[in-house]
Each structure stands twice: as structure tokens, then as C-alpha cells.
């Protein structure tokens, strides 16, 4: 019985998945960071407050929206700096999406 195992393939999967995940998470997190810097901290309440939602209540979501608005008003950055941050945020989100699309194309046409 000839049992040959391609251990390198496992390393490939780990490396590829880690790299892809890191790119996606890093760019997305950077985008959020830039949005906050631009004075547009996203406050996204759950789409529906089902029983499963244990992380935030409706009251907490409203409070978070107020805190974000207050922080945006008190931002020490100039309008120009905020605009640059906003552009950087959208660029990060775009790169994140591009990475996902690239990965998918690689899987579809790579083999």
C-alpha cells in the first residue's frame, strides 16, 4: 500500500488562508479607522433585534449614535484632513473588496 501525503499542500492552505484573511481584515479595519478619523464613526444597529442579539440593545445603539455625533463635532482635525481620511477609508474598503475578488478569480481560473 503506497501512502504518500503531500504535507506541503497543508502549509499552502494555511499560508494562503492566513494571508487572504489578514489582507481582508487589515484593510477593512483600516477603512473603519479612517472613517472614524474622518468624523464618520459608523453606528450600525442590528438589522433586527432578535433574541439572538446579546451584544447590543436598542437603547445602547441610540446612545452610541449620540456619542459618535458628539465625537465628530469635537474632532480637532481640519476639513481637509477629514477629507483625506475619508478618501483613505474608501480606498481601504476598495482594496479589501479587490483582494476578495482576486482570490475568487484565482480559484476559478487558477486551475
Amino acid at each position, binding site marked *: *500500500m*503506497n*501512502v*504518500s*501525503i*503531500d504535507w506541503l*499542500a*497543508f502549509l*499552502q*492552505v*494555511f499560508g*494562503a*488562508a*492566513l494571508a*487572504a*484573511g*489578514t489582507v*481582508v*481584515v*487589515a484593510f*477593512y*479595519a*483600516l*477603512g*473603519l*479607522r479612517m*472613517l*472614524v478619523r474622518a468624523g464618520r*464613526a*459608523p*453606528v*450600525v*444597529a*442590528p*438589522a*433586527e*433585534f*432578535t*433574541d*439572538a*442579539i*446579546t*451584544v*447590543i440593545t436598542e437603547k445602547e445603539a441610540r446612545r*452610541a449614535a449620540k*456619542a*459618535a455625533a458628539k*465625537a465628530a463635532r469635537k474632532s480637532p482635525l481640519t476639513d481637509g484632513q477629514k477629507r483625506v481620511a475619508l478618501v483613505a477609508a474608501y480606498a481601504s474598503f476598495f482594496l479589501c*473588496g479587490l483582494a*476578495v475578488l482576486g*482570490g*475568487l478569480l*484565482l*480559484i*476559478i481560473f*487558477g*486551475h
Partner: protein
Amino acid sequence: METAVIIVLLVIALALFFDFTNGFHDTANAMATPIATGALKPKVAVLLAASLNLVGAFLSTEVSKTISHGIIQEDQIEPLAFLPIIFAGLIGAITWNMLTWLLGLPSSSSHALFGGLIGATLVGASVTAIDFGVVLSKVVLPALIAPFTAGVIAFLLTRLAYAMTRRYDNKPDGRDGFRWGQIFTSSLVALAHGTNDAQKTMGVITLALIMAGLQDGAHADPQLWVIFACAFTIALGTYMGGWRIIRTLGKGLTDVKPAQGFSAESSTAATILASSALGFALSTTQVASGSVIGSGLGRRGSTVRWRTVGRIAIGWLLTLPASGAVGAFAALLVVLFGGWGIAIDAVLAVAIILALFWRSRRNQVDSSNAMSEVADSGLAVKVKRNPPPTRRQRAILREQARRKAEQEAREKAERKAKAKADARQAADDKRARDKVRAAGKPGTGPAAPPVDLPGAPKGDEK
């Protein structure tokens, strides 16, 4: 040949039924985290999962090739005699799959399928008919390694997501925005599920077609109608499975935060997609569970509930041999009774499916028996409500405490000095008043001019 065609039709029907149960069972796995964080409404999540499973099934055929052209060594078997064995293997897989689903035991549709096929082949054909190298490298080892891989990646990604968005000034950190991101990552998980799970059924049907001589063995790619049939069946199963989510609304799910859910889903999707590309037949349930545990551990102040982890791991390890045993039993009936064995298998399968279905209707569906294993694995990690501070936060707190102590010491010293000065001033004033009083007593004329007393503060010194 007619018998072969009938058996092929039976295999296709059973394989598609397995595909349906697979989709039905796994909707919750793909969509458990976005529903838990509120990224998607349950109904939207189910619809999205079904559509993307459909699309995913068309993306790659590597996993299908592993099953139809890797596990079984065609030159070691009699093709037509092998058809009933595939049938027996499918019966083993479906029986085990439905049983674990009903009992709420952690299991994996994929491993049930492999276990059933391998068990049936061992009994119905021979040991040499199985390529153990492929079974080990493309089924068993990925099954053991993938959940850990996904867990480690999810752990690192969660740390990264939190570190990059952490703020030290108590202002909004924007982490809510990960809820938007979750719509995309959970879609990717559903897509990845389609690329891996739908292909397993394609592989089985293609294997049956090759064995019946209806497809050239040299071309292991699934035929277009097979891809369409499997894609639509898994999508339908996924959509139909959604009612369980809507009914239970994810009760019993753990406290999954958006940043954590985003990282877990990224890790799951990346691991499954990378594995699909290389032809590894993974269990999406196990990968998603590994990611949820890993991302839970990535949050500060989390500890593992080893008992829950142990229960899940035992369920996983049990799936392959248990479904193998059921498959082997079904194959044994075929070996012992020939054509009658197939009939007995078919009747038994229908009876078991109906019995389990009736039983599931009788029981109230709740979180204990209807929610996914992914939700179960979330409970394997306990996260503190108020996590301990990070190193930098500790340094900031220390610095704040030091400044406060310094400020207090300074204020205390100032208060002391002021009190001392006031006391001295009062004493000097008193002494001056006494002197003035003493100087004014002998005469009756106007009061003497103020005496310049030594030690008394002068006006310009104030």
C-alpha cells in the same frame, strides 16, 4: 444493464436527497454569526445563503474530482458490482446525518458521506479498492487539521481587527462597522460552502456514472446537468433549512461581537476556499466551528470551556467510523442477499428517513436540538463581560494613577504651606496689635504711628 440504470437512478435520487439535507443542515452554520450580531435579518440571511450556495457550486470541481477519481481505485473493482456499494454508502451517510441532526449531536455531513462510502467499500469490495493515501491526505488529515487551522487564523485575525480599531481616548471606535463587513464575509462563507459541499454530491453521482459506463473514467469532471442538479438541490435545501433559523432566531447563540464575527467568517471562507482549490474535502461545519472558537479566544478575557470542546471533538471523531459502520452494514446486506439486499437497503432507508422525519415533527424545535454546531462551539469559549485592559491601557492607567498621586501630593503640600503661612500671619498680626495696644495705653493723645515690626510681611511682598 437495466439493473445498473435503475441503481444509478436510485444513487442519483439518494445523492440529491443527501445534498438537500446537507444544505438544510448547514444554512445555520454559514449564517449563525451574522444573525447573532444582527448584521442580517434572518430571512435575508437565508435567501443570501441559498443564492450563494447555488453560485458557489459552479466555481470549482476539484473536490468532486477527489471523490470521483481519487478515493476509489477503479482498477481494483468490478464497476457494475460497485454501484450497489455506492448506494449502501449513501444510505450510511444519510442515516447517520439525520440521526445526529435529530439528536442534536455535533456531526458533519461530509464525514458522514466519506465514512459511509469507505465503510461500504471495505465490506462490499475489498481493502485494496480504497486508496488510503488519498483518503488520508485529502479527507482524514484535512478533517483533523482544518478546524485547528481555521481556529488559529480566526484567533490571529480577531486580535488584528481589535488592535487596529482600538482607541485609548474612550471615543467611538467604529467597530459597529464590522456589521456591514459581515454581510460580505458571511456571503463568502455561503459561497465557500457551495464550492465544497455541493461538489461532494457531484463527486458521488459522477462516480456512479463512471461505474455504470455512462461517463468516461478518464474525464472525472462532473457533467453539466450534474452540476446544475446538485447546485439547485443544495440551494433549495439551504433555503428550506432557513425556517429552523427563523423559528429559533438563534436562541442559545453565544455573545458574538461584530469584529469577532467578521474575523471568524473571513477565516472560515479563506480556509474553505483555499482547500476547495486544492481538492481537500473539508467539513464546513467543523471549519466554521473552529473559527468561532478561535475568534472567541481572540477576545480579551476569554477562557475555554474544555468540557464543551471535548463533547464537540468526540462528536467529530465519531462521525467517520459511525457512518462507516452504518454504510458497512448496508453493504453487508447487498453482499449477502444481492439484488434483494439493495431492496432491503432501500426500504430500510425510506423507513429510517420517515421515522426520523416523523420524530422531528413530534418534537418541539428549540435551541437544544435545532441550532447549528457552530452555535454550540461558540459556547465552548467563555468571554468576560468586562475584559481586562491591554498592556497599553495598563500603562495609560498607571500613568494616570501616577499623575493623580503627584497632583494630590502637590495640593497637600500647598495646603500645608498655606496653613503654615496663615498661622504665621495671624501670629504676627496678633503680636503687632498687642504692641500697638501697649504703646497707646500711657498717653491719651492720638494713636502712635504704626511700628515697623520685624518679620511682618510688607505690602509689596504680597
